């Protein structure tokens, strides 16, 4: 592939004309944050130009110019990714969508919301809630943009019952690497009209197109949600209970697992106690419904099942204050672990739900073998784990050796258990090696071919997912 063009004064002079001056940044006007996402461990790279776009037409002009001049372009939302997806590995232009932050429409007749990609997840959830509905996906990072959610097919805690972001995307407007503006899908509820380019785009991490408008499904909001906090003697016992809860006739909204050590980190980070905090391991199981009686029957069945599986008690979280006490702690886990150590690496594998316990046991073996602190929590109900290897006091050389050995081991183990590399964080550039090892050459070749069809020059978000 042809080497990318370094941006020169003439390029800057042209690119400047596409947007007003206050949305164009070069050299020391570029904020250092543009060189990384949330995981600085995967390296940094500064862009040459940052452009804040307001609409598809501006994006199209930039893409056309970049395509004509072979300049790499990296899309960026809020920069909350965890695998380096928005890092401009080859410099060039960063297209920031965070000013495209308007909620365009909530349409109760088709039960959809249409937004620009820079709207934050928390803003979508709030707006839909205020309109009396529910936007069901609930990824942990609420300050991520919806564009980022769509591009990584973000999952989150309610995936057990409601599925992931992909299941809610009805239509998108995208700008292709050559600058064409496409409308994929729409507000329609089903679609068998040829290959789904829409679903190729969802989860493509900005390697196939730049999303500029999104229409998503919303749904009636259940009136009540109650959670059960279920303590166990061991995490293994907790995780073995999950398939039994999944078999019950009523589907739980959320099934999360956590251990005391992570809770201690969260308590320290938030400066706030967790209720009923002295047990080794927990499940949080939530049910939603429209009447107290309905929810209580679900709780009763879940409670009996948990006790049969060895739960030490079953605690009820049924008011807003109680829900906040639990969920604020759960929401702070990632930041809390980050805060507890000097550096960390993370793994977001997804496994069959009956294999989660085995994988967690394996992480413990690694922790003992390599003498390194490993923390995990995650979505027990959909098999998606978040495992963090913490550097703490290790020297750089030991750390680099240990973290690679441990991570390599995790992905080998995940493959052995028929799991997948990423449940919801994506591949970016950090997990490419593991993706190749996991899916094999034939699938990688198909992915590379798809990339070439959309982006023959490879200028859009180069170095991510495939090379």
């Amino acid at each position, binding site marked *: 592939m042809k080497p990318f063009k370094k941006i020169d004064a003439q390029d800057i002079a042209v690119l400047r004309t596409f947007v*007003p001056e206050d949305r164009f940044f070069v050299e020391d006007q570029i904020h250092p944050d543009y060189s990384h996402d949330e995981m600085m461990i995967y390296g940094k790279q500064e862009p040459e130009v940052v452009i804040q776009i307001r609409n598809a037409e501006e994006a199209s002009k930039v893409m056309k110019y970049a395509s004509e001049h072979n300049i790499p372009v990296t899309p960026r939302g809020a920069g909350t990714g965890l695998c380096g997806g928005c890092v401009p590995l080859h410099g060039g232009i960063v297209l920031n969508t965070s000013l495209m932050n308007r909620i365009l429409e909530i349409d109760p007749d088709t039960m959809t919301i249409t937004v620009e990609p820079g709207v934050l997840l928390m803003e979508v959830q709030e707006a839909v809630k205020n309109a009396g509905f529910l936007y069901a996906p609930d990824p942990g990072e609420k300050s991520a943009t919806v564009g980022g959610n769509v591009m990584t097919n973000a999952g989150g805690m309610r995936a057990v019952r409601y599925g992931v972001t992909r299941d809610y995307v009805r239509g998108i407007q995208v700008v292709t690497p050559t600058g064409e503006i496409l409308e994929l899908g729409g507000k329609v509820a089903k679609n068998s009209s040829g290959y789904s380019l829409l679903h190729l785009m969802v989860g493509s991490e900005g390697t196939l197109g730049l999303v500029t408008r999104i229409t998503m499904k919303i749904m009636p909001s259940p009136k009540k949600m109650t959670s059960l906090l279920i303590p166990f003697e061991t995490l293994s016992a907790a995780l073995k209970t999950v398939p039994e809860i999944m078999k019950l006739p009523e589907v739980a909204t959320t099934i999360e697992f956590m251990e005391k050590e992570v809770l201690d980190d969260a308590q320290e980070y938030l400066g*706030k*106690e967790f209720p009923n905090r002295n047990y080794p391991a927990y499940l949080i199981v939530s049910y939603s419904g429209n009447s107290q009686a309905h929810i209580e029957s679900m709780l009763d069945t879940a*409670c009996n099942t948990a006790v049969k599986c060895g739960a030490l008690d079953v605690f*009820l979280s049924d*008011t807003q204050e*109680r829900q906040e006490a639990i969920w604020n702690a759960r929401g702070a886990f990632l930041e809390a672990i980050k805060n507890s150590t000097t550096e960390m690496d993370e793994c977001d594998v997804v496994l069959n739900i009956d294999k989660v316990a085995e994988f967690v046991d394996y992480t413990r073996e690694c922790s003992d073998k390599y003498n390194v602190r490993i923390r995990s929590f995650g979505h027990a109900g959909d098999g998606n784990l978040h495992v963090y290897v913490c550097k703490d006091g290790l020297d750089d050389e030991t750390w680099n050796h240990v973290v690679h050995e441990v991570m390599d081991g995790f992905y080998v183990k995940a493959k052995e258990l028929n799991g997948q590399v990423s449940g919801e964080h994506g591949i970016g550039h950090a997990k490419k090696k593991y993706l190749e090892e996991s899916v094999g050459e034939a699938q990688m070749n198909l992915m590379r071919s798809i990339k070439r069809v959309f982006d023959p020059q490879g200028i859009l978000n180069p170095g991510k997912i495939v090379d």
Partner: protein
Amino acid sequence: MRIIVCVKQVPDTQKVQVDPVTGVLIRNGIDTKMNPYDLYALETALRIKEKTDAEIHVISMGPDAAKAVLVESMAMGADEAWLLSDRRFAGADVLATSFTLAQGIKAIGDVDLILCGKQTTDGDTAQVGPAIGEVLNMPHVSWVRKLIDADDKGLVVQQEMMDSVADVRLNYPCLLTVEKGIFEPGLPSYLKMKEARKKEIHVLNLDKCECKDTKRYGLSGSPTQVEKIFEPVYDLQSVRLEGSTEDNAKALFDKLVELKVAGGK
């Protein structure tokens, strides 16, 4: 050692609604819950129980439906529950309420420590706790934000006042009203809840109180009268500025001057 915790059932809503015609709080059709501040009082009792051999009794004044918060208290770890319920208690103000609760506490007897939430989220007076202490002629400390020490003789607590903080040593019997956040309240156990539903709740009416003078209870024992209840007016307006940074900054400044938030020339 015996600890008595006062709890109240309140509307489970962030926004209290008032009937525009009668000016009375709308309670029908709204879910109820335990007054959030009382959860802190109960948790404080449970933490003291961890250090001593205390038994915890909860008491509430209200209609039969208020048994729900007593069952919940037992599911959180209280040992016994008492309901003060009598038509003659209805319409009580702060004075009559605290008098009635004090009568209930006397009926339970042998109390070492009384714990109340700082206030309720519906009445909001924060007076009932201290008033119970006065009726019982018992030392009391309000706004307790920290339990420093507890043994079977007494307590050391930290009291937060408007402009100062005091560490106070009290001997039993005494009464505390506790602040939000003194401890994180535990959750009710679903398993204990099932047992608690089968357990007896001791019901006390006026006839079981030491003072039989009906003029001390309910509406007739209430010298204060609520003339009017009204909803506070919320006035949140949003202005969206669209334009260049300079224009927006100027427009924002002009708006702040207009609203007298920022000074003019």
